[in-house]
């Protein structure tokens, strides 16, 4: 029963991590650039939820579309300010510009909200359902459901619509996509918007159970980076599975030992994967993309 309880907690955390990693890998594929501001976008989404809650005194689920829309707009701004002017420069330029955006977001949040941890409202309620000996917090179930819905929606758009085909073509070969009439710059803007919206959703989902501070993004970008490395650099399903795996690992090891030990073991495992299987779990699929 304890293992099942840990599984639910791990999947809930992993579902939110998956959204962070998904947004990260979509931008990575579309631009070949690592968006180091992704973790700070998660923080921004959480604090948006915190700020909007008194204005919209309804369950957190009502805030979700508001956060998604505002974060998508922030993603567009990020692309226009920190990516498009530098897209033809060496990749390190974009790394630095996204780090700069992240620092601006952190400091902006510290000025507006202060350094104290804050909690966003629960999506539906903060009761705990009892099922046999299992305690199921409503928020955990809501996180799993909302993340699954958003990831499913992303998969549907990418797999079944012309917009999704254009986004995938842009990610696979931007020059050839242009030669097929795809407006590549617009697709990159859309990708940044989706990536930031995913981060914002994760921020809102996490900010109730795990709280949010202006510096919370640093840990989350590392988690996204690890998830994408574990799953296979550039693999979308790999990023989602990688995020679930690291959350289950984190929750499992924390429960037996401690959170610091879990984090240490996580980074040791990352090093082992980099050495022993640098292509990640879904590396074969990545190779085929090229």
């Amino acid at each position, binding site marked *: 029963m304890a293992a099942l309880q840990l599984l639910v907690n791990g999947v809930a955390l992993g579902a939110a991590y998956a959204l962070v990693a998904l947004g990260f890998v979509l931008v990575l594929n579309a631009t070949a650039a690592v968006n180091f501001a992704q973790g700070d976008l998660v923080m921004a989404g959480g604090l948006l939820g915190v700020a909007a809650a008194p204005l919209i005194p309804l369950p957190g689920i009502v805030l979700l579309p508001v956060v998604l829309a505002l974060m998508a707009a922030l993603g567009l701004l990020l692309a226009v300010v920190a990516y498009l002017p530098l897209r033809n420069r060496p990749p390190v330029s974009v790394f630095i510009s996204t780090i700069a955006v992240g620092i601006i977001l952190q400091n902006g949040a510290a000025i507006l909200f202060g350094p104290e941890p804050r909690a966003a409202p629960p999506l539906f309620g903060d009761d705990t359902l009892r099922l046999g000996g299992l305690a199921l917090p409503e928020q955990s179930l809501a996180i799993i459901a909302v993340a699954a819905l958003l990831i499913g929606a992303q998969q549907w758009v990418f797999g079944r619509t*012309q917009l999704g*085909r*254009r986004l*995938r*073509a842009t990610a*696979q*070969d931007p*020059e*050839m*996509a*242009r*030669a*097929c*009439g*795809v*407006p*590549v710059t617009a697709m990159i803007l859309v990708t940044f918007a989706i990536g930031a919206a995913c981060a914002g959703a994760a921020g809102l989902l996490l900010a109730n159970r795990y709280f949010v501070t202006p510096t919370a993004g640093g840990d989350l970008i590392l988690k996204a980076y690890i998830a994408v490395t574990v799953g296979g650099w550039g693999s979308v399903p790999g990023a989602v599975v990688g995020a679930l795996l690291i959350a289950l690992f984190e929750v499992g090891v924390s429960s037996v030992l401690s959170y610091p030990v879990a984090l240490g073991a996580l980074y040791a495992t990352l090093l082992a994967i980099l050495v022993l299987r640098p292509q990640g779990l879904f590396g074969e*699929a990545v190779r*085929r*993309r*090229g």
Partner: protein
Amino acid sequence: MSALLSITGVSAGYGGADALDGVSLTVAAGETVALLGANGAGKSTLLKAVLGLVPARGELRFDGADLGGLATEARVRRGIGYVPEGRRVFPGMSVRDNLEVAGLAAARDRAEDVERVFALFPDLARKSRDSAWRLSGGQQQMLSLGRALMGRPRLLLLDEPSLGLSPKLADEVFAAIRHIAAAGTAVLLAEQSAARALSAAPRAVLLRLGRVVADGPVAALSEEAVRDAFFG
């Protein structure tokens, strides 16, 4: 015939080095023109310049309108299709998605265009759900050609369509090119295999070191001029 594509004094290249030096030529509506020359003659660069994939100086006009300043995707939307050297299909996408992504029409018309491509290349219809990386080289070339047709081009730019294919597959690809040309699409065909290109085009332009050295009906081109374009 009035010129569909008009190229006047175009120079283009990579990183400051010009691979084309003042090239001028025209392609009329419905005409097939072979672009011949050795490796490095500038054939691929010329096709890329027309599409805006490399920066070019000089004048490029399509259907009377200046292409200068237009993005690649805007040129494609005006009716220029492109089949690149090496196929460059989207490997992680299915055959059908590779075709659909290049469709510029509304969904229903796009589906009809896919069916037209499948009628031209039945092999692709049989593999419509397969990822493009699973296809053979010949099938990928057919997919690349079919993808270019999805934009309903009036001018098709073909870069080395027989490269890396067995003679039998190259014959099939050229049969399809003749079919496309016969349906009224103008074709500018860059090809190293002179014999194959000249069998498909009534007119040829010979390039050497980025310059046009001969331009005329295939029947009027001397064997010596063709040999010179390839071997100098």
